[in-house]
Each structure stands twice: as C-alpha cells, then as structure tokens.
C-alpha cells in the first residue's frame, strides 16, 4: 500500500493514533514512577496522586493522549482495512521502548534483546504495508 492508495487523511490519523498511544503509555508510566515511594492504602495513593502536580499532570496528560489516540484510531479505521491498520499498532510498542530508554524520567536500560525486537517489528510493518495490499473500499469489508 502506497500513499496513492490510501487517503492522506487516514494515513495521518493512523500515524497520530500510533504516536499518541505511545505518548499516553509513557506519560502514565512517568506519572506512576513519580508516585513511587508514596506508601499506604489505595485512598492515600489516590490523594497523593491528586495533590502532587507532577503526578496528576503526567497522568492527566497521559489519559488525554489516550482519548485522542482512540478518536484518531476510530477515524483512521474508516479508511483502512482492519488487517492493515491493526498491525501498525506494533510501531507504538517500539516508540514506548525508545521513549522509556531515552526519557530520563523513566530511564529503562537499553538491551540487545529488546532492540532486536524493534528490528523484527519494523520488518513486519514493512511486510504488512507491501504494495499489493490496497485500502479498504466499501465492497470488501464490513459485510458478513
């Protein structure tokens, strides 16, 4: 599938959805890390999360990204077959890994095994997008 087959709008929306969902995961993870060290009951945790601007800001931004990602995803689906769009979510796992490694708030270690995972996902994404897969037109999906 090339840009000529799929509406530009759908491609942009899918890209936004993938990036936003990775941002959502990273922001929520950073928020939970900032919460770390606050012990105690669930109520105490909730209270700390609301009172701490860093925690509530990060988690709030994460939830916002998540909602926007979902909206972009639904709109993108109108222009894509599910069997092409869904595998593209694999890219967001790659972005989450890279973000977790390079964003010092999270700072996860870079490992050879996980980096090999990136290569496999990207090979898969290229194969899924290969030329002979057209876009979704109304005649070949949604009817069963």
């Amino acid at each position, binding site marked *: 599938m090339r840009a000529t087959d799929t509406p530009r709008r759908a491609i942009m929306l899918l890209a936004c959805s993938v990036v936003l969902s990775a941002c959502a995961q990273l922001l929520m993870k950073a928020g939970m890390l900032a919460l770390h060290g606050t012990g105690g009951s669930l109520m105490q945790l909730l209270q700390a999360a609301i009172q701490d601007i860093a925690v509530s800001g990060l988690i709030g931004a994460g939830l916002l990204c998540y909602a926007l990602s979902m909206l972009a995803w*639904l709109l993108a689906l109108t222009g894509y077959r599910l069997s092409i769009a869904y595998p593209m979510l694999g890219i967001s796992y790659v972005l989450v*890994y890279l973000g977790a490694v390079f964003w010092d708030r999270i700072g996860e270690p870079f490992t050879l095994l996980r980096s090999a995972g990136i290569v496999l*996902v990207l090979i898969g994404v290229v194969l*899924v997008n290969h030329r002979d*897969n057209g876009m979704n037109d109304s005649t070949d*999906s949604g009817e*069963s």
Partner: protein
Amino acid sequence: MEAGLIEYGLIALVVALTSSGQVLQKLGADRGLKNAHGTAAILRALFRWEIILSGVCLASAVVIWLAVLYRMDVSKAFPFISSGFIVVLLAARFYLREAISWRRWIGVLFIVAGISLLSQS
C-alpha cells in the same frame, strides 16, 4: 510467580475481549463514522452500539489484564497477549472478509515476535 490454568484462562479472556473490541470498532467506523460529516455527526456516530460495546470490551480487558499482571510477570504474560494480533487478523479474514496476502500474515508474525522480545526486561 508460577502461572497456572487460571492465569492462562484470564489471558485468553483478555485476548478475546480486545480482539472483539477491535472488530466492533471497525464495524462502528464503517457503519457510522465513514458517512459522518461535521462535528455533530461524528459525535453521534461515536455513540453507536458497536463503539459503546467496544468500549465495554476494552475496559473490561484492561481490568482483567491488571489482574493478570498482579499474578504473573509482564515479560511472561505479554508474548501471549501479543498473539491478539493474529486473532484480530483471523477475525478480519473470516468475519470481515478482508483479503490478506501471505506477505501480510508473515509480517504480523514478525510483529508478534518483535513485541514478545520488546516485553522482555
């Protein structure tokens, strides 16, 4: 943490719920959003039963997933979860009747393998 039948059952449930959620979202997108023009029409299309039900599926999947994570390591659980990519493709092929080339099947296998590696700490 030793994973048993209950854990794998819960994982299967998570995969079933997320895959159903995806199919429902696609149905909702095709039946409602595709022909919705303007903000009001899009908002109305977001409240179709397919989209609402997909939200219920995905939300319950998250809750069950948290229960799984409480009982086993994410690096052990995630490779099974990523098999959802294959389930979604099967649903797209046999329920939504999408044509899927062998190249795309192989591509998804690469993605599942890659995500399994990415989840290893």
